[in-house]
């Protein structure tokens, strides 16, 4: 199993918490989905710094891995991550909510280099990912496709249509990441529908499944490095997370699925992120 050193883990934690602070700054210009962005932030940070084969200076590089943000409301976090790894020459954070901004709340591939496909309505990304991964297979390409979905999204029937297709075509170059923060927009998912847990469902559809702690940087890295988990099977990573992770007073609550922080809120959130960063760093050492 490939592992990160303690120093590498500490560095990624710092990056991930810096990304959270920048996301809060971005939100200060309007509103956005802090809950989902922060439950996925550690994974996004690891993916873009260590896992994805990409070239931020050449976003259209024809050998790059493809990352699809199916749970596209998390985009406020993705923008910040893309900026942190060098996709943009100028600071895009402060353009949020401006007329003709390139960073709408849900991303637009036509506007922003680094976004390969526009999503926003849930349940589309896995099918598009199947199409791209299938094309790569047929083209004998080693390019891979990663699709990040939310767990509320799993209620969309099209997700399971795509799950069948990925398994049928043995797409081991496709990885679905399910951010299981256990909350949808308005309530805990278990209060809405009987869908949890996801592991056996994907296994039954013929996927190779691994479960990770979505806030354990070392575990995230090692698990992503193991892709493909099994020859000829699509990969599913069930990532157990905390909604709005990193801002204590926002965590695990529907009230912060979406947030428009005022000046005081921005200040409090950044303080909380800094405190939590220290705790995380202590846990590692």
């Amino acid at each position, binding site marked *: 199993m490939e592992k990160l050193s303690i120093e590498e883990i500490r560095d990624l934690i710092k990056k991930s918490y810096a990304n959270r602070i920048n996301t809060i700054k971005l939100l200060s210009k309007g509103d956005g989905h802090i809950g989902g962005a922060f439950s996925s932030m550690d994974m996004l940070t690891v993916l873009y710094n260590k896992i994805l084969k990409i070239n931020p200076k050449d976003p259209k590089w024809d050998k790059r891995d493809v990352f699809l943000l199916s749970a596209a409301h998390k985009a406020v976090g993705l923008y910040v991550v893309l900026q942190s790894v060098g996709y943009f020459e100028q600071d895009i954070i402060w353009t949020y909510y401006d007329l003709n901004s390139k960073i709408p709340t849900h991303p637009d591939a036509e506007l922003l280099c680094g976004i390969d496909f526009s999503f926003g309505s849930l349940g589309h990304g896995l099918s598009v990912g199947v199409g791209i991964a299938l*094309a790569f297979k047929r083209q004998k390409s080693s390019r891979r496709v990663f699709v990040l979905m939310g767990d509320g999204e799993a209620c969309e029937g099209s997700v399971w249509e795509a799950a069948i297709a990925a398994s049928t075509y043995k797409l081991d170059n496709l990885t679905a990441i399910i951010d299981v923060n256990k909350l949808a927009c308005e309530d805990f998912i278990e209060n809405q529908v009987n869908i949890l847990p996801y592991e056996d469902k994907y296994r039954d559809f013929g996927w190779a499944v691994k479960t990770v702690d979505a806030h354990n940087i070392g575990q995230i890295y090692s698990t992503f490095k193991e892709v493909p988990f099994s020859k000829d099977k699509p990969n599913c990573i069930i990532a157990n997370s905390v909604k709005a992770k990193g801002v204590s007073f926002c965590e695990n609550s529907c009230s912060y699925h979406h947030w428009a922080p005022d000046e005081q809120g921005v200040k409090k959130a950044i303080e909380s992120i800094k405190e939590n960063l220290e705790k995380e760093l202590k846990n590692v050492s």
Partner: protein
Amino acid sequence: MSVEINDKSLKNPVEVFGRALVELAETDERVALVSADSYKGGGGAEFKKRFPERFFEFGICEQNAASVSGGLAWAGYKPFWSTIATFATMRCFEQIRNDIVRPRLNVAICGRAAGLSYSTQGPTHLSIDEMGILRTLPGMVVVAPADDLDMRNTVFEAVKLEGPIYFRKQKLMLPRVNPNDYEFKFGKGVELKEGQDITVIACGSMVSVGLCVSDLLAKDKISAGVINMHTIKPIDKDLVIRCAKKTGLIVSLEEHTVFNGLGSAVADVLSTECPTRLIKFGFEDKWPVDGGIWEEVMDFHGLSAQKIAGRIKQCL
């Protein structure tokens, strides 16, 4: 009634589609066929046999098939996604909108058994509104081929587009209406017959009906021109304006509701560019009655050549 056509044998649009697709795939390795339990009925059996590595079956799941087609196109394929017209366009409308049309991907959505092709199959299978739904999407090309030549040309031209296209495949056998040497171009209507008094603008199966209408009117000394407007989006504005200026009264014929289809596209042009009286023939604002063979059902709805000619005469 007699219709002057070059080839009087009836052509099966589905077979013509299947043959054209194989021929195209022989020279273009990007061409793929996507099926949702629908390739045999859609004319794709030979394609599957010849090009198994470019044939993709997904089972009965239209939403997935639409988005996957977008993904395949994003990665360089030219997918033809073919299933029954209502299924191909409605359940997965949002997938078409977001994953194919908005990113301007070159996917050809092929709606089989469009219009009242399934006139005996019950209400869910009648596709009388799908062109209108798709016409709302920016950048969408919407085509109702009138005969085998239109169908073949549509297949070959579809892959040259930079973006998406929807086209109909009637189940009905269609007579040839276009001259052998005609020029086919999306967005350019074909003037099949010149007229002095009225112009009939038709698409798909209604083009041959339009020619019959013209013959019937000729008996009463009414000279009716006939246009094959195979592309309802983008509509051939110049031709519509030219016809309106020449004959005044325009008649539109479509196997579709009168809302947002060919008639509406023509009305959009006339109302802004050249106000002219237009009579729209199609299905009115009620669910069509079905249960009979195509000719009977069309006649019931006032869409046979005789009934159309009769109504035109009353209007003159």
